[in-house]
C-alpha cells in the first residue's frame, strides 16, 4: 500500500468523534489540516506522538492548523484516551468499516490491522501538500510537518508553489 502523495486532492471522509458527533474533512476546509494516522490508543509511553503535538499546539495554531488524530480504535476508547492524556485535538474513529479511511490514504497495515504512523498536511484548499510515513516504531516528531506548514504559509495563495516533497524537508526520501 502506498501513501497518497503531495498534490493529490485529499479524499473526503466522515468519521465519528463522539457517539453523537461526526466530523467530515470537508467541514475543515479553509484552514490547513494535519491528519495524524497512528496505530492505536494507549501506547505505553506518555510522550507519544499525539502527546507531543498536544504540547506543541501553540506552534501549530500559529499556522492556523487543525490537528486530527485517526486510528481504528472505537469512540469510547478515544474518549477515555483523550481524557486521560488531556488532549485538546479531536481523535476520529476509523472503526467501521475498519480502517476504511486509512486504506483511502494508503496507510493501512494489513499485517497489524492498524493504521501506520503517517502524517498528511492538507492545505486550506483541500490538497495534500506533504505526507510522511514513519518507519515502524519510529515517532516522527514535529519538525517536518512544522517546516511544511511554514512553507505553505510563506507561499499562501501561490498555486505554482513547487511540490513540497521536492524541497529538502521530507524526512523520508
Amino acid at each position, binding site marked *: 500500500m502506498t501513501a497518497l502523495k503531495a498534490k493529490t486532492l485529499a479524499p473526503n471522509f466522515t468519521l465519528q468523534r463522539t457517539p453523537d458527533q461526526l466530523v467530515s474533512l470537508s467541514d475543515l476546509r479553509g484552514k490547513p489540516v494535519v491528519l495524524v494516522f497512528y496505530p492505536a490508543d494507549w501506547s505505553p509511553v*506518555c*510522550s507519544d506522538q499525539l*502527546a*507531543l503535538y*498536544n*504540547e506543541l499546539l501553540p506552534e501549530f495554531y500559529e499556522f492556523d492548523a487543525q490537528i486530527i488524530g485517526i486510528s481504528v480504535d472505537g469512540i469510547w476508547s478515544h474518549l477515555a484516551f483523550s481524557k486521560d*492524556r488531556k488532549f485538546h485535538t479531536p481523535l476520529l474513529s476509523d472503526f467501521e468499516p475498519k480502517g476504511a479511511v486509512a486504506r483511502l490514504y494508503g496507510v493501512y497495515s494489513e499485517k497489524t490491522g492498524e493504521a501506520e504512523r503517517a502524517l498528511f498536511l492538507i492545505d486550506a484548499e483541500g490538497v495534500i501538500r506533504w505526507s510522511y510515513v514513519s518507519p515502524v516504531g519510529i515517532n516522527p516528531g*514535529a519538525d517536518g510537518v512544522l517546516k511544511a506548514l511554514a512553507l505553505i504559509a510563506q507561499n499562501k495563495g501561490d498555486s505554482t508553489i513547487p511540490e513540497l516533497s521536492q524541497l529538502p524537508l521530507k524526512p523520508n526520501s
Partner: protein
Amino acid sequence: MNPSATLTPPVSAGDHVAGDSNAPLTLVEYGDYQCPYCGAAHPVIKRIQRTLGRELRFVFRNFPLTQAHPYAMIAAEAAEAAALQQKFWEMHDFIYEHQDDLEPDVLPVWARRVGLNLEEFGNAIGKGGVSTRIKEDRLSGIKSGVNGTPCFFINGVRYDGTADYEPMIAVLKEQLNSSDI
C-alpha cells in the same frame, strides 16, 4: 532510508554539560522532570557516565510536556534556578531521584537540601531568565526532531532505540570506535 534528526543547535558553552568538554562522545537528553520514562532513564545515564568516564560529556536540555505533566515546568524552573547558583546537576539529580514525591511545595525543601540560597532560588523561579532558557531549550528540541521524552542525541544524531543501558552503550561504543579511526 530515514536521515536521522540532527541536534539543532549543537552543544555550546551555554548548555548544562557534565563531564569532559573535550570528550569524543556527547550524549544529549531532552527531558521532562515529571516524565516517568525520564525518571527511569536517569539511573541508566548515571551508569553510562560511570562506564565511559572521560570519554563522555552529558548534556541536559529541557523539554517539559506541560499538558501531560502539571509539575514539569515548575521542576524545570527549579533546576534552572539552581543553575544560577552553579548547582544545576545537584538539583537535577535530586529531582529525578525523588520524582515520585514531586510537587510544587517540596521544591524549596529540595533546594535547601542541595544547598541553595532559598531567597535567590525563590526570586529566580518564574523570572524571565529561567523561563526564557526553558523556552529556548524547547524550541531547539522541536527543531532537532524531538519526538517525546526522553529523547537522546548521540554526537548530534537522534538515538531512536530504547532508553536502556545495553542498547545505548552499544551505540556509544560504536561511535567511539569509529571516531578512533
